[in-house]
């Protein structure tokens, strides 16, 4: 991780409507894709990846929201996929005989999805207003990915004229 610091953050008034809508789309698009990919929660991940590659080179503000949405999508998808495969396993091999751990997992996955939904909706509304919204963990990660000054950027921006070494 670089210690070169971070780019300055734009304020709502600096962000054009177009970018705000792209940022909002990052979250809203997931819902549609999530519903489409429901039995096998993989389609939504493919859709988010496409959205990510299309939008990542737009402004940093857009990149932040796209990355936050994509990264938070990974564990949610993994959890849902785990549930699907565990359920199939129980159905096929164990005659529907499930343990309390499975029951707890189902409840936890439902709660996790609800939390994900609520946070995504709040984030999409904020993005539309040109604001930032940080998820736990993913928010910081996305901020770092989108706003950290990379070495090559720092190199290119070095002022050509330097004071003499005194």
């Amino acid at each position, binding site marked *: 991780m670089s210690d070169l610091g971070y780019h300055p953050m734009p304020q709502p008034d600096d962000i054009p409507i177009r970018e705000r809508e792209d940022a909002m789309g990052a979250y809203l698009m997931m819902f549609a894709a999530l519903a489409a990919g429901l039995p096998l929660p993989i389609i939504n991940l493919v859709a988010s990846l496409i959205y990510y590659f299309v939008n990542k080179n737009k402004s940093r503000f857009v990149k932040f929201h796209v990355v936050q949405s994509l990264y938070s999508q990974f564990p949610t998808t993994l959890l849902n996929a785990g549930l699907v495969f565990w359920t199939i396993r129980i159905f096929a*091999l164990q*005659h529907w005989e499930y343990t309390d751990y499975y029951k707890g997992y189902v409840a*936890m996955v439902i709660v996790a999805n609800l939390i994900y939904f609520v946070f995504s909706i709040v984030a999409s509304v904020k993005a539309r207003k040109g604001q930032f919204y940080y998820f736990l963990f993913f928010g910081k*990660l996305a901020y770092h990915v989108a706003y950290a000054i990379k070495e090559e950027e720092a190199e290119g921006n070095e002022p050509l004229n330097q004071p003499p070494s005194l």
Partner: protein
Amino acid sequence: MRQSIFRDLVILLAIFAAGWLGFTYISILPEENVFEISPEKEQELGEKMVENIINNDPTYNPILNKTLDSAMNLIQNRLFDAQDTALFTYHIRVINNSAINAYTLPGGYIFVFTGLIEFTDTPEELAAVIAHEIGHVEERHLMMKMMKELGMAVVFSGDLSILNEVGRTAISTMFDRKNEEEADDYALNLLQNANIDPRIIATFFRKLKEKYGRSESMLDLLSTHPHSNSRIKTALEYKVGADFESVPFDLDWDNVKNNLRNDKDAFEMELDSIQ
């Protein structure tokens, strides 16, 4: 920054783990408490269901055979006398059906198929199966399962057409592993009290396993298949008390079975002649 992100990740994982464990150990939905249903109420329901089966089920062919009756009396009395406490008065009926099976209705009505009797080599094996079925009733597994699948309102609706459905659920119901183990434990204890070697359960399991291999056995004793090995082991490792003495039944089991077979043949011939 790196530390801060890492800390957030740890918090996230901790929340997930706590949630999973929390939901695992805390029941989310209040289960309808089966113990609020009095044994009398269950008995009443069972009576209705038995009546319904006798009147409406064409496959219900009770066997009337004196040798078998006296043998069954001997076996069941030994078991009933060994019960410390019992919620129900048990009624055991033998049904003419070649499947190796037995089932129980609420209120302590146990139905044993002739196929099961012919499959057993000793009366002790049959006693073990009956003890296991009694275990399910005493632990209220059947009511619990029916409540779960159909709900209180349906089970006690009193409607005749619904009663058929309730009966089918009761007969076809599969108990989960925990219930099976509880019924096994009950049976092991009961058999010991009845001066029957509890390890007979393991013998019977193994025989069933050999017959059915890995496929599904009809008998609920072995229905939760992947775990039957551990249940055999539990039965084999069961420690009997120091004063335990195995008292075999004073029965000529082969004679009982032969008698039953002849009777069955006669019964079927009679059926043929009617048709």
